[in-house]
């Protein structure tokens, strides 16, 4: 089954995403901030990384940039899940190397479908 890393500083949102995905059989690793997420990425490979944008220590954007540039994990799927949904923000995320973007508030069903598409593809 696909392995997913979820980085989100809001505990309740982590629970929401976790419950949504685990029920569908995904294997989830959790990180509570950007720095922790990056450390997990140093040690593991994931099929998909879901990152919040605004997080302590390292932002989601910085994690994407460092993963793409320093870890040489060019093919790893990376999704940003953020309340920042302005066009400029999306462009910055795309430039940094994020593959997908989903804005908050989000539909768990829609998240599942999107992940299904990403991983199925």
């Amino acid at each position: 089954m696909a392995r997913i890393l979820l980085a989100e500083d809001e505990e309740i949102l982590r629970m929401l995403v976790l419950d949504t995905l685990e029920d569908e059989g995904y294997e989830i690793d959790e990180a509570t901030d950007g720095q922790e997420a990056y450390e997990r990425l140093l040690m593991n490979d994931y099929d998909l990384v879901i990152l919040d944008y605004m997080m302590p220590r390292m932002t989601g954007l910085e994690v994407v940039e460092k993963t793409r540039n320093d870890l040489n994990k060019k093919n790893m799927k990376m999704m940003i899940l953020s309340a920042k949904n302005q066009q400029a923000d999306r462009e910055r995320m795309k430039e940094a190397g994020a593959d997908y973007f989903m804005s908050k508030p989000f539909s768990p069903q829609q998240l599942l479908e999107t992940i299904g598409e990403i991983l199925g593809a």
Partner: protein
Amino acid sequence: MFDSRGYFAFGTDTFLENIEKKELQINKDLTTFNKVYRSDEDKALSSEIQEFTNRYFNESLPSAIQYKREGQLEELVEMSQSGGTQRVNDVLQSLNSFESDVQEEINFIYEEKDEKTSTSQWIYFSFLTFMVLVFIVLIRLMMKQFGGPLKEIANVSTQITNGLFVTDVPHTQRLDEIGLLSQAFEKMIRSTQDNEQELIAQNEELAAQQDELNEQQEKLREALSTTEQNEKMLLRMNSFIHSISNTLDKDQLLKSIISNMVEITYSSKGLIWLIDGNQTASVGLSETEQIQFKQHFPDSGMFEKLKESSLSHQVMRDTSTSERGYVEQKYKSGDLYIPIFSGKREIMAVLVVTRIGSTYSCDEVTEYQGLARQVALSLEKIMLYEDSEKQRVTMKNVMNSIHEGIQLIDNKGNIISANQKFCEFMSCNLPDQLTNMRYEEWTRRLEGRVQEARELLAFIQGAVHEKNDVGISHVFELDGEVKRVIQIYSESLIQNDTKLGTVIVYRDITKEHEVDQMKSEFVTTVSHELRTPLSSVLGFTELMLTRELKPERQKKYLTTIHQEAFRLTSLINDFLDVQKMESGSQEFDKKYHSILPIIQDVIDVQKVNSDKHVFVMDIQTEKLSVFGDRDKLSQVFMNLISNAIKYSPEGGKVLVRLYHTNKHLIINIKDEGLGIPQSAIGDLFTKFYRVDNSDRRKIGGTGLGLAIVKEIVKVHGGQISVESTLGQGSIFTVKFPVIEDVYVNASITMDKGQKADIIIIEDDRHLAGLITEELIERGFQIAQYNKGEEALIMIEKLKPEAIILDILLEGEMDGWQVIQTLKANENTKDIPIFISTALDEKQRGLNLGAAGYLIKPYQPSQLTSSILQVLLNKEKNGHILVPEEK
């Protein structure tokens, strides 16, 4: 001889030197004698002396000297005795004999000469006498021949001189010189007489001409006098104009006018009164006299007369005692009143001059009226100047009071003028320092303080050369102690189709810029803060709707949804609070509360959310009362204590300490958390301000909490401040005005036997009954009215301790009018009024002076409690009785 004998006797060489000199002298004398001798005897004597001399000096004397030198005195004596001395004596005798002969001959010659001289004198005297006699005879002959005719001619001359007409001149017939002289004299007389006739005629003509000339001269003199007078007048006028035109100070001008006028008009004293401003200046007048003039002259008939006639007017009068000085008798003086009219023919000043001892002539008055026109011109000029100066100062003040920097530049870009604000932008002290500053200089100064100067200079160039489009503006950042954001725009200054220059306006939009930035950040923050709980709410509800969930999970999800919904509500309430505070519509239900249970409740709630923190209360005072809105006070401490928890994520002690000073009840909330950077402390209570606005901020929040706290504290007459050390924690300090502890609760005990009357003005009889019942139960005496008019009469009589007032009443008056009437009455203004109404206009009621405001429906016990609190508080001030509790 004596020298030779001296030598022989004493042997001194000096004698030898004398002998040599005498030898030379003897030889010289002999030579002279040889030239003059005349007889043979003289010749023989000369030869004898010559021979003796030769022998004596060449033979005898050298031998004798030789003997002396060799000491052969015997030979020397022998030589003397052998005839040497005798020979000398012989020669001397011959010489003496010769001298006697010569002397005799001289005497004979003198006698002969005296005889001849006597004879010559006698001959000379006789000749002289003869010559005198001859001369006298000749004179007499001359007088007879020439003197008589000449005298006759002289007589004729005298006659002519005396003006007599002479026809004949004597001796013209003579052929000698006298005849010629007479003929010439006669011709001269004829010619002179002819000339005289002619001269007389000419003289007469000249006299006539002279008369004419005299007449002309008289006329010219008169004309000259007039011209001189005119010239003097012009000089005076010129001097006057010159002397009064050199000042722009009104006081100085008035002094100058009056002192010059007094001098020019030869007056003793004078005064000028400027109607606009009731200002005077004088010469020779006391302060009292000036005041007297200012007080009485405007109402005098003279003033009206001057205004109507537009002419000067003279008053002739006897001199006063003081004006006469030491002179005893009275004499006349003139007071000349000269009106000064403006160009619009309005009287603007009056000039009065006084001539003691004489009066002013009509010509003088006319002349002085002419001067008055010059005075008017000067006064108008200075008034114009003052107006213009006033306008200039006003304009300058207006320019300087404007918050925008304003700069007027000419068509080359050089500064014409600038205001204070622009001066501040340019870091100068006074705007005048910028006047006339060249374009290159001021743009260089500006350029040094602007980051993107090229764009700014391009804009200014566009303004100078009128290339900027209408409405175009440019924004730049100005470096300095505080960075400023300036918006600049320009307008051309055009007069009569000619561009005079350009006005450039610099608007400090730093605050707006900051607010814009803050708003932008706020939108981002709000978006984030709202989206996060919304994600949970929407997400979990979707899961519950789309999935079959176990009851435990359902409960867990519902609890989460509830919490997140609560979080959303708090956020929305914060926004609403801010909005209400800004619009001034926030309502506060103030009562006396003990602050302690309020804080304790907050801590109890917060404890649930945090297991890392230890809460400690340190109560050092008993004065714990605060007059305020319980919910809002709770909000203050909820916010501060939740912040203390949020910003100490690692846990630690949260200390709440209460103590008091003379004026304040002070509450400290201290944490051991992250602390606040010093740079952020100044902005901490600003709306939407967050210490960390970055994307990786650790702690959420809208940046509204502390702004709301500050506003609530302020409304309660308090203050809030913060101290913090980064990494060690923060202390928030709230101060409220200290209040003696009047807090009462339902179990308060009242003194027995005390009565208090309460009047209820209420048209809802059911409610009135309920309230009455409740109050009677608490021991009050009640009177009830349903019309304001009736109640007012009874209030005056009964003087109740409190009034309960409805707003909508039966009768003409409503509750607002009743409260206004009561508060306006000195006897009733201190009675506490509790408004009991369905209308939500609490602030209006409190503004009118209500002690309490209850919105229906409410529990009657709530009203009683309010009344008791107020009455007890009043009692603290020594006024009121509290009813007995039953």
